[in-house]
């Protein structure tokens, strides 16, 4: 089950905790992977760890020309892109009364507009080959909201609506478009929380612990697989029961 041998995957934000785990998991199932992100040294390190069937292409998701180049270079490196995992994302948290236009725009630009651009660029080859898996990493807050994250929640909710639209446009060409929505995951980002903050958060998680990046990656592997061919336009929530939607 879930054999990805012969498949080519492009993972954005692969220098991060969740993106790295996704790239490792896809690679482990046999896929060739292209690691993208802004931190070239971290990407090269991961490539070294993976060994064969791994490529690095650094790119910025707030730059339209860079996004087109990323897709072209990934197709050149791997021959095709079968699986696109849009994981790159940033936060610029602030209460709305204090949120600056640039904080709003930057988060929408990277998390939503960049994802749309890269997906649009990848569709052409997927349509031609009559196979595609687009997996957008959204967030629990895109569904529940979160104070201080109006920009991030809007972008992540936007990804869900966008994915449903693309799923309907592309289903007849055997291309699926789905989202994975992590809850609170143990990454370098959540390491900085104090014990008190962690206790407060865990009080809202029935599972009583943070999730792991590998648990997110497992959901991505499933949606990328041939076995998930009939799953499209869906959001897979992986959150320890924190929200049941």
């Amino acid at each position, binding site marked *: 089950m879930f054999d990805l041998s012969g498949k080519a995957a492009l993972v954005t934000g692969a220098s991060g905790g969740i993106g790295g785990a996704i790239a490792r998991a896809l690679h482990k199932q046999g896929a060739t992977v292209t690691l993208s992100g802004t931190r070239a040294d971290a990407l090269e390190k991961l490539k070294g760890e993976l060994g064969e069937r791994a490529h690095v292409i650094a790119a910025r998701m707030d730059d339209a020309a860079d996004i087109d180049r990323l897709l072209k270079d990934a197709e050149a490196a791997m021959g095709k892109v079968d699986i696109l995992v849009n994981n790159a994302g940033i936060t610029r948290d602030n209460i709305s009364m204090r949120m600056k236009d640039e904080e709003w725009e930057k988060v929408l630009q990277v998390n939503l507009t960049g994802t749309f651009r890269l997906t649009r660029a990848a569709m*052409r080859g997927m*349509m*031609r080959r009559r196979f595609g898996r687009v997996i957008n990493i959204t967030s629990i807050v895109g569904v529940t909201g979160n104070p201080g994250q109006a920009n991030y929640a809007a972008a992540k909710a936007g990804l869900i609506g966008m994915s449903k639209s693309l799923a309907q*446009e*592309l289903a*007849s*060409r055997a291309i699926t478009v789905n989202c994975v929505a992590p809850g609170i995951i143990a990454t370098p980002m959540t390491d900085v929380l104090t014990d008190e903050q962690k206790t407060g958060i865990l009080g809202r998680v029935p599972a009583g612990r943070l999730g792991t990046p590998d648990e997110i990656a497992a959901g991505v592997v499933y949606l990328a697989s041939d076995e998930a061919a009939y799953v499209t336009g869906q959001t897979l929530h992986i959150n320890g029961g924190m929200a049941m939607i």
Partner: protein
Amino acid sequence: MSDIAERVKKIVVEHLGVEAAQVKEDAKFIDDLGADSLDTVELVMAFEEEFGIEIPDDAAEKIQTVGDAIGFIKSNAKS
């Protein structure tokens, strides 16, 4: 140059699964040949490959009939 017309018609027949006799120059892809909007995108991609040209989005939107496609390719194809 009629060769171009024949190649275009062949692509349309293969892609849309219609009879060659239906593929007249004034036939509209969507209204007459049963194409959906995604089919028209794929036809444009197929023309680009067959003739080694690039059809920009604004030009692609104007290609609504078989004759439109033949006309565009005749004035832009290298071979």
